[in-house]
């Protein structure tokens, strides 16, 4: 890339010619404040918080969309710039509830941080304020448009990254509001519950539907046996809520904290991730062997499953009938675990800690009552778990490392990597390779399916079978692109992994929020940093293949029989339903 010389606040610096002024300043060590700007996702120059003065340019310019050029002279903190930025934030505050003390984003709100940075000690402007009812219709995402500052970061992520497009800008001027078409609730449209909108919201307009209250209540109820399962990605993200750098694994402290919160047993979703590989891997072999529907597509990600049901119903038969690890765990907790330990399943309260808001929807799907009870009673996100730990006054950083409880707590590296895009595929390949070939896999790391590339493809040669062709997509736009490719006859695969969230579950809608300014300073994508935690845990495991998990071997011997067997079929498999794409009925389009 060609370099240009620009002067920022009197200091000359060389930057690539495709940089914006904002990026150039960042490189020169000047942090220009931003609000609507979100690296790689939203660059629209709408909020005017990043204004700067540029010699020979008319008026002040939004640095997030202003391209650099040779000789450009930029001033980032002249009195005019500082006064304009302050006025912009003051105007935003004039139409904002300012109920910071009781807001979920208190101390993590980007608007609050800007107000503080700009030294706003009172709100000069008072006037009409927009008030809207809170949208409680979704099982996963709660939307309070009164707090919305119209930055459109959620609109950008919902449309461009996720290709879901339920959030849009309605009306104009002071009447503008972000929401689904016809002012419907998020629970009434084809929202996938992925929660990516929450992860990008700078304020408290979007948050997860809270399940912590019901968990506290269960923990305080002596008649309840309260158990918890933790998804692979919690250990890769939870530390951030306590100030640890992104990508620090905290498995042992997480287990210790859950015990101290009062859970009777702390189990690992990684155990049922290994079990998922056994069921799904065998389903793949069965489909290949019997000429069944291919490609087989993973179904662990409830955001992806719902996206498929709404938008790609012609692929429903391709979805693996294997339940997600959360759902498998739920079904087994109130059957296998209850029977083994002589506990009345009616008294078991099963909580799952998930990086995912869509899991709140998944556990409420009608088919998730295989045990005769609700398989999972409450789903808390990583953020909610952190709030509980803080509320209980647990000194997280100084906790000892503890181990999961036995019988549903053992896991392999294969179960852990479910948290990263490509992980389910890699875990499946580790097992399928050995099952088909009867040989020991020497190198268990399949680098072709790792990393942040949107769509990854690989062909794995398995002795005794031949080439297994696989593909991996993460983020629903990439998923849609891959499915469109298959629809048009391109791409011939046996097995596909799809995760709704960019980066896979580590980037889930329930994970710690990485602010806009923070994203600008990171050396790489935050999801990629969390992957490192996941792959470190995998590398440190003695057992790295699902079929070697001793508790998985035990559950098949003592309880389930064999993969895809009758008991498995009843407890561990499910089906999917076509769902409408629109909230109103429309006729078919004419044939092309």
């Amino acid at each position, binding site marked *: 890339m060609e370099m240009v010389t620009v002067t920022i606040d009197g200091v000359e610096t060389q930057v690539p010619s495709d940089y914006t002024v904002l990026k150039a300043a960042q490189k020169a060590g000047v942090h220009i404040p931003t609000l609507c700007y979100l690296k790689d996702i939203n660059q629209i120059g709408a909020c005017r918080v990043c204004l700067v003065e540029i010699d020979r340019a008319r008026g002040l310019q939004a640095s997030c969309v202003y391209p650099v050029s040779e000789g450009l002279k930029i001033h980032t903190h002249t009195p005019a710039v500082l006064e304009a930025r302050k006025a912009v934030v003051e105007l935003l505050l004039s139409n904002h509830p300012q109920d910071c003390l009781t807001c979920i984003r208190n101390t993590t709100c980007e608007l609050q941080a800007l107000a503080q940075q700009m030294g706003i000690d009172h709100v000069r402007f008072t006037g009409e304020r927009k008030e809207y009812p809170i949208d409680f219709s979704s099982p996963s995402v709660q939307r309070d448009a009164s707090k919305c500052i119209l930055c459109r970061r959620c609109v950008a992520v919902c449309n461009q990254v996720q290709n879901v497009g339920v959030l849009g800008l309605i*009306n104009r001027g002071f009447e503008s509001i972000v929401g689904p078409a016809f002012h419907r609730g998020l629970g009434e449209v084809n929202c996938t519950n992925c929660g990516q909108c929450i992860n990008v919201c700078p304020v408290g307009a979007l948050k997860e539907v809270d399940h912590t209250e019901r968990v506290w209540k269960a923990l305080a109820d002596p008649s309840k046996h309260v158990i918890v399962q933790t998804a692979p990605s919690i250990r890769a993200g939870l530390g951030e809520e306590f100030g640890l750098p992104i990508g620090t694994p905290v498995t042992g402290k997480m287990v210790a904290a859950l015990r101290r919160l009062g859970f009777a047993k702390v189990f690992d979703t990684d155990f049922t991730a290994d079990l998922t590989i056994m069921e799904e891997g065998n389903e793949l072999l069965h489909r290949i062997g019997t000429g069944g529907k291919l490609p087989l597509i993973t179904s662990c990600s409830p955001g992806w499953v719902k996206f498929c049901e709404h938008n790609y119903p012609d692929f429903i038969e391709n979805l693996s009938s294997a339940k997600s690890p959360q759902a498998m765990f739920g079904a087994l907790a109130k059957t296998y675990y209850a029977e083994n330990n002589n506990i009345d399943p009616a008294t078991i309260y099963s909580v799952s800690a998930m990086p995912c808001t869509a899991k709140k929807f998944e556990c409420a799907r009608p088919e998730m009552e295989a045990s005769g009870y609700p398989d999972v009673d409450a789903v808390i996100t990583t953020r909610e778990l952190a709030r509980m730990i803080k509320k209980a006054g647990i000194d997280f950083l100084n906790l000892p490392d503890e181990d999961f409880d036995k019988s549903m707590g053992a896991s392999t590296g294969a179960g852990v990597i479910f948290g990263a895009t490509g992980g389910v595929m890699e875990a499946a390949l580790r097992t399928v390779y050995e099952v088909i070939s009867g040989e020991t896999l020497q190198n268990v790391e399949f680098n072709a399916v790792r990393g942040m590339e949107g769509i990854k493809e690989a062909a794995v040669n398995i002795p005794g079978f031949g080439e297994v062709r696989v593909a991996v997509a993460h983020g629903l736009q990439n998923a849609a692109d891959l499915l469109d490719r298959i629809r048009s006859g391109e791409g011939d695969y046996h097995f596909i992994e799809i995760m709704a969230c960019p980066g896979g579950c580590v980037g889930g809608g329930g994970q710690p929020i990485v602010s806009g300014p923070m994203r600008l300073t990171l050396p790489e994508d935050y999801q990629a940093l969390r992957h490192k935690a996941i792959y470190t845990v995998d590398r440190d495991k003695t057992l790295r293949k699902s079929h070697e998990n001793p508790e998985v071997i035990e559950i098949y011997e003592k309880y389930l029989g064999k993969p895809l067997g009758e008991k498995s079929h009843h407890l561990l498999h499910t089906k999917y339903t076509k769902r409408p794409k*629109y909230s109103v009925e429309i006729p078919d389009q004419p044939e092309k």
Partner: protein
Amino acid sequence: MSCQCGSASKDERFVKIDQILDQNGRDESFLIQNLEQIQHILGYLPEDVQAYLAEAMGIPLSKVYGVVTFYSLFTTEPIGKHKISICLGTACYVKGAGEILAEFEKQLKIKVGETTPDGRFTLTACRCLGACGLAPVLNVNGKVFGRLTTDDIAGILAQFE
């Protein structure tokens, strides 16, 4: 029994929409043009029409609805036989357009943006008809009335059956 699928049983409105789309194109850049022509035929843009258009053009429904609600040209409610557009631009407003609007609301017993129950009148507000010299000014079905006072209103309404 004969087949119930296909265009034979398709709602007349959607057949017309298909024709408009065939003529103009289904690319996203034709959204406003398509909306305008569909509204011209149907009189308004109901929910199922917006959803059908979103599907036909391959764009999110939220985007179609966003455009429909952004431009005052578009309406999502059926409009009356006669459409009254009162200018609330700066010049008209200073000259008393607010009182004119209030008088229409009083006499028609509806609020701005609504249609009389008999379907005779729809009352809307607009921004500057470009005839500020005639302020306060309004337009009924394209016919312009200027230099209005509240006493003129009953007479204007009487001209439109």
